[in-house]
């Protein structure tokens, strides 16, 4: 693989950087200068969708939330592999189909495993 590129080809990227940084800086400066500056106790409180916040957020909560979330992420990420496969489905032919079946089979084994282990039981 040969890449023929001169430093000048990277100019658009440099401009992109300048624009991105400039946008952030100018909006921050502009809001600071234009907006009225009224500080109040209510404004500094944690945003809880309009409900008054109560208690400490550093408290133990059930590991089940964590477990469900991590399992969701796991299976969610695996599904991403199906998109490139679906796009190239025709060109990969039967081999690609079988390979994907194998992959999904292993995934289903994992699902059976976590269900039988009781990881999804809430009570």
């Amino acid at each position, binding site marked *: *693989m040969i*890449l023929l590129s001169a430093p000048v080809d990277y100019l658009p990227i440099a401009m992109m950087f300048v624009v991105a940084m400039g946008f952030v800086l100018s909006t921050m400066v502009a809001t600071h200068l234009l907006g009225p500056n009224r500080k109040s106790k209510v404004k500094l409180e944690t945003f809880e969708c309009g409900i008054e916040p109560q208690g400490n957020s550093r408290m133990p909560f059930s590991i089940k939330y964590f477990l469900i979330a991590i399992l969701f992420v796991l299976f969610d990420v695996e599904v991403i592999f199906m998109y490139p496969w679906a796009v190239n489905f025709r060109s990969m032919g039967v081999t690609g189909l079988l390979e994907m079946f194998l992959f999904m089979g*292993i995934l289903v*084994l994992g699902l*059976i495993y976590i269900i*039988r*282990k009781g990881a999804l039981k809430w009570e």
Partner: protein
Amino acid sequence: MNALIVIACLGIAAMMSEVLGFKKLLLPLVAIGLISVVGLFVMDWNTSIRYYHDMLYFDNYAIAFSAMVTVLTALWLIMSKEYFISTTSKAEHAALILFCLTGAIVMISYSDLSMLFIGIEILSISLYVLAASNKHDLRSNEAGLKYFLMGAFATGFLLFGITLIYGASGSFNLQEIANYLSKNSEHLPMFVYAGVLLMLVGLLFKVSAAPFHFWAPDVYEGSPTLVTAFMSTIVKTAAFAAFYRLFATCFSDLSGWWGETLAIVAALTMLVGNVLAVMQQNFKRMLAYSSIAHAGYMLMAIVAMNHISAGAIFLYTSAYSIASLGAFACLHALGANDNEKIINLRGFIAKQPFNAGLLCLAMLSLAGIPPLAGFFAKYYLFYGVIQSGYLWLVLVAVLSSLIGVYYYFRVIYTMFLPREEEDGVLPKISGGHKILLTIVAILSLLMGIFPGILQGIL
């Protein structure tokens, strides 16, 4: 290649055995599986096939090391029956061990830097969990966390290195990188050297060589003894196989550049490992430092890099791993109540002379005393290094071996002391541990008497 698939499937079967209710069949299944895997490797001998667009390359080097780690795992299994049959243990331990083995074989037989990375990760991630598998022991938790943080850090270095090498050569393939390096040896960009250096750092972290060894004693001490035995034998063998393969096929043209660095690291590793092992009162921690020191000797084979060094590193890793397994079997059998002190061995020779004799043989092999495997492993290694012109390195190695003899003999000396009242009852070594000790002693003797068999096949 088929062997790799069989081991991966065995791992999945082990994982499912508990939920599908065939846990009782697990041990025979795994035993038969591992034996047939060794058979499959033997059948592949001399074939040298490349798989999956040259991602994996099973040449004789890869097959020899893969068969060796499989045999070591089978030996390890003999003392680890409790992982498979006791009611309290989980089938996950067995599954993780088999996934570790899968990773080890991938990282031994890689022919592509991405496969090296995947192999190391399959191996490491299973090991992080295993290191912390003794959930109610604080030290085990600490070991798992430390190992994970350090391992992730080292993997970062490795990946940076791979990226820079890819940036220069435009390929992950070992052969193509080697071709690129030899073709452009006159005007290599600076970042190629940085890439080699970063990969070197990443791998030195993984094999716990001297400036990067600080995690090893804590992790080895904290992990459950069986996992430590696995880490310091099978994992170390696989890591060195990968290390040697990378530098022999890929970066051998640059050896003038990294040779001196690696020689100094090797010398430092041997000295640090051996000197610190002398001061340890804890048997397990002493074995951890001894494992660091042995990593230094094995690094010498990579420094030497000539026609006999592949055979020498193969003989050395097998001799070291087999003797270590024996030492860990004793430690595991005797240290039932977290009693891992060396003085716990007092009176061993009077109470159980046969077992103590076998442990003696394992210790002598680790120290490198003539009729045993450790001596000839060191002999071939040192010979190769002298041939490559690093005489000072061999002098350092001999000196540090002498320090090593002291603390291995201290273990033997302690066995002869009379047992005191405060020591309590010495547990009886029987069953799997005794069988393993016997096999270890026989293999160490056989490999010491006929060292050419293992050394000559590569």
